[in-house]
């Protein structure tokens, strides 16, 4: 997994450098530092150091077993969080938060149905009162008009 992450970084760095070299000029026509000056240096440096670390990693290849079990909960939480992002876009702050909390707590905090539902209602209400009424801050709007 570590090597996959490094490869993703490398890909990003290569893409960044590509744009820096193709689209952005190193110096402007008047001889000053152009928009590409820093991006090119950053891009090349990132590629070099990432390759260096990759080579180090491959060389001291640690064949330890990755514990799949520890990954399961994190992946689930991440997936739920991304789902929450989508829900926010669709249903707006209040409804999306209530749905997210209800689903997440029933998965993570299994068995306490009553408590979970209570939290899923109280937290969005509390946040709504705090943000919308008290602080006059923005809550995400839904795609279609909703009462809240």
């Amino acid at each position, binding site marked *: 997994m*570590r090597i996959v992450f490094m490869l993703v970084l490398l890909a990003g760095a290569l893409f960044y450098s590509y744009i820096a070299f193709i689209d*952005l000029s190193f110096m402007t026509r008047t*001889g000053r530092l152009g928009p590409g000056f*820093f991006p090119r240096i950053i891009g090349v440096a990132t590629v070099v150091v990432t390759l260096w670390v990759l080579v180090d990693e491959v060389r001291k290849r640690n064949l330890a077993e990755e514990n799949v079990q520890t990954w399961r909960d*994190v992946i689930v939480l991440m997936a739920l969080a991304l789902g929450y992002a989508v829900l926010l876009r669709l249903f707006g702050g209040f409804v999306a*938060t209530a749905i*997210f909390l209800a689903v*997440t707590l029933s998965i993570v905090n299994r068995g306490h149905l009553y408590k979970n539902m209570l939290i899923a209602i109280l937290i969005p209400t509390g946040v709504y009162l705090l943000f919308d009424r008290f602080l006059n*801050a923005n809550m*995400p709007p839904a795609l279609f008009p909703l009462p809240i």
Partner: protein
Amino acid sequence: MDIFGDLLMGLTVAITPINMVYLMFGACVGMIVGVIPGFGPSAGLAILLPVTFGMDPIGAIMMLAAIYYGAMYGGTITSILLNTPGESATVASTFDGFPLAKQGRAGPALVMQAAASFVGGTVGVILITILAPMFAQVSRSFGPPEYFLLAAMGMLTLIVMIGEHWKLGVISALIGLALGTVGVDLETGQGRYTFGSAELIGGIYFIPIAIGLFGLGELFFAFYNNLHKTGTGSIVQYDKEERFWPTAHDWISTRMTMVRGSLLGFVVGVIPGAGATIASLMAYSIERSVSKTPENFGKGEMAGLVAPETANNAASSGAMIPLLTLGIPGSASTAVLLAAFLMWGLRPGPLFMQQNPELAWGLIASMYLGNMALLAISIFAIPLFVQIIKVPYRILGPIIVVICALGTFSVHASFVELYLMFAAGIIGFFMRLYGFSPAALVLALVLGPLGEEALRQTLTISRGSFMIFLERAPSLWIIGITIVLLLILPLIGRFGSRASEAEKAGS
């Protein structure tokens, strides 16, 4: 430059009923944030920054500053009771704090750490009061060349202090620099990495990234470490004991420790890039080497708890100096404070203390009050905070996701920033897992654009010649100090980490 007159003026600004409420609220929130394992001042500040929108500037900044140094008080509670540092700056407090708790001396340990934090914080604020105007005066002679060099120094010292995983730190910083280049190029007006998106033309705002990296990233990492399954109720070492207060011996034996720790902590805190973590580790190893009973360190020696505690609070005060007098943040938390200042239309820098004396001195005055408030809260509310540790992480976790998301959205009402925050959360998790440095990324994201603009201005002034750095006296000084730091800091850092390894091996 009448320091006492300014301070008095600051006190009159700070001591209003509503500001005192904000201060107390910030101090409590800061302690709570510090107590939750994994969450440090950076996460707390980033998440709560949007909440300060409806407030007036001085109250908001007092509250944010209270959260900042309040977190230093709270982070030690879990270090002592659970052997789990609340944030990286309190790692050194676990070495002797937890052994003290195991001996049944949790109460005295907690009281001493509150006192030590108070001394460190107050000494730090006194030093700010004296030194900030002087620094501001010196920095008035700074121009673009010096700003570029300071930004570079901040990045270099941070990377050098990372130690053995420095390559990963370099990559983290480079990612931050790369993210900082997104937006419109100031000189040519050309869009860089905007891909036609109207949202990205303004660049990547660093608050969503900070919230994602430090808030969500830590949360995912805690779930990965199954923190949500273990619960904490059974391992808390805090029952009713006979003695709550420390003995006279405790106080007397650590009085010089407090002095050493605060001075050292403050000096380290001032250096951009070095911060409370390094200060606390250095203070621990230095205290051990000057102690008459070094063999007791790691087994419950009070000086071993007092030294890092004094240092980390003094360092957080010290870090305010480059922020207030130069406008250059030295750490992720001060970067968030900088964002707060900018949000209110204030420009920290050499002229800040001159142009906004009520704000600057009001803030400094509030830090005195804040430290006193925190001392009282720490001692009397300790049983209350112990209860917070017992709230199961699996309930706290989803609530934190909600607060991060809604908080991010409320800043600019931007869905793009919301998605960036979630992306930063996932990246932050992997960064924590594989030994990268989210702090370096955030610092680079802030210092990068600052440095680039400064360099371009410099080369415009010098008409393309890099010799300008060697022709100006302030630049030469900064280059000299940087070289000295780059040589000394790694040695001291290695000294500190060897001390911590010896601890872990010995105990």
